[in-house]
């Protein structure tokens, strides 16, 4: 590399870094809109209230980020490419019929084998509880969905291709799309009932839409939609990063289309 260019980069990096640290330490916080959020009570979990009610549209955007990321991961691994010769050259036909073809996939000890199945079941339960309690306890769709995906990952790591919990990819694709669509449709319902997109309506035809001690309105449903979506997205990401055979199948499929 060019030493002069290196020096210039180093100097600008040092100046920039020093400035960032110096000015960050000068920050004096103005609470501003926070006070309004704290004084207007929606649900007991104030963060959830912001996430799904005051700024629910941001959360929709965040869902879309995740869904776009998963779509692009599919593209990277050979879905719908205009030209797949580069990938075909890299991913040769599989030697074994198993889905997970990591090299030197050794056997785990018995303790791991016997514990991971019950653990994964209980993790799923815990994830479901976290999703459903999003409006009253610390938690919510993202955390719960991540927990369920974690149980999938645990199961895959412990058992490899014979994983007892197995989401096949058509199911994951559908679940993901349906989760995001459910979010959008709930938003439109709010638009029909209250006049604004993602309006939080608590009753419909005189019935509570989420019966219980806390009138949370649409927030629990949004939590469920997000939970299913996150579960699907994270599982797909793991699926793609670990299962080479899926990629090879995908490339073969796109070969037929391109011909």
């Amino acid at each position, binding site marked *: 590399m060019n030493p002069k260019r290196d020096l210039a980069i180093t100097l600008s990096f040092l100046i920039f870094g020093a400035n960032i640290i110096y000015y960050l330490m000068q920050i004096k916080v103005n609470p501003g809109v926070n006070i309004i959020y704290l004084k207007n009570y929606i649900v007991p979990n104030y963060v959830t209230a912001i996430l799904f009610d005051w700024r629910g549209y941001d959360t929709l955007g965040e869902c879309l980020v995740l869904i776009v990321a998963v779509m692009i991961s599919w593209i990277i691994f050979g879905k719908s490419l205009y030209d797949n010769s580069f990938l075909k050259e890299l991913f040769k036909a599989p030697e074994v019929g198993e889905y997970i073809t990591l090299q030197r996939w050794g056997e785990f000890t018995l303790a791991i084998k016997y514990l991971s199945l*019950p653990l994964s079941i*209980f993790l*799923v339960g*815990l994830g*479901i*509880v976290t999703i*459903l309690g999003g409006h009253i306890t610390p938690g919510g769709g993202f955390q719960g969905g991540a927990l369920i995906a974690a149980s999938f990952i645990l199961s895959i790591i412990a058992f490899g291709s014979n994983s007892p919990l*197995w989401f096949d990819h058509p199911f994951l694709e559908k679940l993901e799309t349906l989760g995001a669509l459910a979010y959008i449709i709930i938003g439109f319902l709010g638009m029909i009932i209250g006049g604004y997109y993602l309006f939080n309506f608590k009753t419909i035809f005189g019935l509570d839409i*989420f019966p219980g001690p806390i009138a949370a309105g649409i927030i629990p449903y949004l939590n*469920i939609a997000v939970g299913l979506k996150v579960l699907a997205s994270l599982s797909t990401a793991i699926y793609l990063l670990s299962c080479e055979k899926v990629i090879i199948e995908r490339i073969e499929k796109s070969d037929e289309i391109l011909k």
Partner: protein
Amino acid sequence: MIVDYFYPSILAFLIGVLIGYRYRIKLNHFFGYIIISLIIAKFLGAFPYYPFPLSFEFLFSILGIFVGNKLKRDN
């Protein structure tokens, strides 16, 4: 109404069925799982504002997983 308080449990059961249907093996030791999940549910505690001694949502989600697993014919 007390029935209203079971609404999240019903949802938990449904989601449990959805996930339980995806287990490729037959899940055994039903009562063992239920006993352990009772213990976990006791320690988890019910949601705030819900007058339950234990977390019925957790219990019902585990039940849902087993029911979903039973619904799948081919294993």
